[in-house]
């Protein structure tokens, strides 16, 4: 049994702070980054101290069933975040650290060959190793030699999962990982979708699979606005029973976070009334989620829906979480709050749709 030791926990909290969002947080819009979740912390603590038995037990509990929280978050995602904190911890010497994690997870996989988690963790470390070469910057900033190592480690991870598919691929966490591997290796969209659907067959409640599949469909990867929109509508339909139109809002919010930023409503095919309906559906089903209300308010601001923004800011009161307001969140929140306070007349001009110039033979 792992005690709730305040000292190791404190140490681990600090480690967590250093790795925030580096691995798993980026794409999921329903969670506040300012929060430290108990399950994430417990998972990270068990991983830091090498308590594989505790991790495996928790994975077995979570890999089937809904495990959805009252705010619409899901335990499996918080659980996976704990791994990200350890594997993605920033160090001065990442190579020996990652090699050691590789050795450790391989030892676990050898000792527990029937554990899907053991194999998945090993593959996760290989993926992290790959990204340590790639870095998180623009492609043009990646040294040419690093691309080879990046691909080599991703291929090793894919191969490892394939070699242990009989155990690993019974767990949708493997599919979730394989989609990120395939995205890095430029696998075609149909292959990735097939992996996603296979994962959903294993665990129809693994909501994260919908978010993972979003990434390769973004224009910066291999998609475009149309492909993305089709996918989001399809995913919304697939999850309608549970979330209503909620997935539409969440996936477009994720798309804003990963690619479109403040230009979501200019550069994508998002439809604000549908997105708004999605948030409303989520609020009906999962009313206690200040984090999602923050996202909703931010999106209302981007969509220039002042009444909705005003209402949401009033509802939020002191629960406004600046970290959830997009890129440059502090300024983003400021400007939205300022705009919300302006009288409708003051910003009348802003509300007029921009006149677009057009050349036509008639004007000649």
């Amino acid at each position, binding site marked *: 049994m792992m005690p709730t030791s305040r000292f190791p926990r404190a140490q681990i909290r600090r480690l967590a702070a250093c790795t925030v969002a580096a691995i798993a947080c980026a794409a999921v819009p329903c969670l506040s980054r300012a929060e430290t979740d108990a399950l994430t912390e417990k998972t990270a603590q068990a991983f830091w*101290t090498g308590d594989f038995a505790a991790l495996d037990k928790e994975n077995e509990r979570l890999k089937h069933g809904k495990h959805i929280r009252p705010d619409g978050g899901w335990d499996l995602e918080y659980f996976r975040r704990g791994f990200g904190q350890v594997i993605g911890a920033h160090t001065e010497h990442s190579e020996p650290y990652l090699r050691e994690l590789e050795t450790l997870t391989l030892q676990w996989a050898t000792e527990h060959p029937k554990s899907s988690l053991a194999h998945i963790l090993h593959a996760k470390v290989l993926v992290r190793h790959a990204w340590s070469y790639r870095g998180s910057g623009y492609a043009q900033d990646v040294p040419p030699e690093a691309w080879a190592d990046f691909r080599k480690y991703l291929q090793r991870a894919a191969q490892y999962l394939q070699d242990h598919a009989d155990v690993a691929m019974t767990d949708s966490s493997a599919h979730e990982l394989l989609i990120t591997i395939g995205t890095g290796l430029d696998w075609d969209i149909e292959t990735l979708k097939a992996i996603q659907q296979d994962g959903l067959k294993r665990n129809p409640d693994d909501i994260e699979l919908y978010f993972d599949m979003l990434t390769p469909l973004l224009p910066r990867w291999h998609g475009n606005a149309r492909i993305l929109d089709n996918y989001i509508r399809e995913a919304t339909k697939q999850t309608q029973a549970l979330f209503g139109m909620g997935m539409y809002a969440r996936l477009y919010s994720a798309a804003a976070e990963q690619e479109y930023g403040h230009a979501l409503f200019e550069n994508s095919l998002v439809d604000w009334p549908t997105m708004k309906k999605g948030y409303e559906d989520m609020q009906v089903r999962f009313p206690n989620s200040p984090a999602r209300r923050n996202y909703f308010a931010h999106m209302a601001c981007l969509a220039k829906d002042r009444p909705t923004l005003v209402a949401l800011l009033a509802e939020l009161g002191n629960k406004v979480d600046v970290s959830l307001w997009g890129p440059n969140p502090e300024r983003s929140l400021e400007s939205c709050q300022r705009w919300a306070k302006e009288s409708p007349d003051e910003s009348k001009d802003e509300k007029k749709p921009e006149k677009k110039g057009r050349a036509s033979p008639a004007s000649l």
Partner: protein
Amino acid sequence: MPGWRWGRGYWPDVPEACVPGSISHSHCRLVANTRKRENVCIYVSAIALCCTVSIPLFPFLQVKTLFLTHVHQRVPVLLGKAVLAGTFACMVGGAHAAESAFSDDPVAKIKNALHDDLLRYFTLDKEFVLDPALRAAAEKIAEEHVARMDKLFPAWIEEERVHQSSAGKPPSSNSVHGAVYARMLNELALWQLEPGDAHYENATLTALRTGPGACEVPGDPRFLDFASRIMRIQILPAAERDAMLASERTLLSHWGQPRANPAPWPDPLPQQAAYALLQRGSADADHPRLALPPLLAYYVLGKGVDYAGLQFWDRCRLQQWWLNESLRQGTAPAAALNAFRYGTMLTVVDRIGNAWDKPGAADAKDSAGPPPYPVIASRYGATGVTTVNVRLDAAGKPLDAVVTGRKVEVPGIRGVRPVAFENVFDAAIVKYAMGAGRHYDKPSGKEPYKFQMNWSLDDDKNANVPKGAKP
């Protein structure tokens, strides 16, 4: 960054006013700070007023106030009892200065002070999540042990008084208290090293082999001796508990009894062996070894932290990892456990460290001269001889230095090795042996260069005499 602990982790920095000879100052101010690490989030400080001249016989345990600073908050906390550092500083500091007569009243005060101090080692932190039945049983054992020691302390005090009186001069109460306190610290250390019966040894090994949480014990790391043992029992199946607790009772009953000397210090020390192995690089087919748990991998490999830089819990984790690795390598279980016990034993160096050293004092010393006498050793009157092996390169430049022999004597500890004090000169002699610009006249090739250092307390505390060829 990581590496910091919160809570009662204060470590004393004793200003000049507390050094021997200055005890007659109206106030001896003890400033205790946490050892700051990079990006320390919580800073704890303690200011204790002690050693008032109005209490000539027992200038200690007059701690009034402790200020805790938690992030941006300052919260005054009345502790009521002396902080350990205050006790150390004032008691032992006073031992050299206040030469007051011995009477019955001081006996009671010494006894009470020893009781308060001992209690700290046997109090389980409230945050220590224990099975309630185990906690209750452990607390009962602790209570019984402290009660037994309370009865024993007067005899120890009298024995020490008689011993010191044999020198022909009436001893001061402080010197008696210091010696008895040293004896108590040594009993703590001997207890950590003593093996139990065969069942206890096997079960302890099982706990350390199978319990990744064996080191996750909350509390002030200077006082976790008892809690660490209870944590190991909690890891074991419940069916083992009664037998283990019975063994703990038996081992505690050995306090104050004549004992055989413990097994010798492992050579090399487990941490040295562990680091040497890790420095060979990652585990692979040619160099198989157990992988480190991620937290250790993070600090040791990812951050390059040496053993001295690890905190108590990480040291414990490293020792646990090394125990498992050495068992994997074929080391006999008894030897592996002995190494673990030495590796995790809390000596006075771990409990007090260089708290009494004046900042920079050691650095100011002439590097060609003898090393400075560790203040903690002089406070407790520790003397002795240390033997050092220095590995040299072809030019006679030191590559590393390892203490291979420790023969130490401490007032108050008789008939058994003063294991709690035996490493009190280690850091000083290793630093001396590896000193910047140190060159050895006779490089000895593959064989390490060996020399000894005598540590004696006479008129000149720095009159340390290296034996053998001059480095």
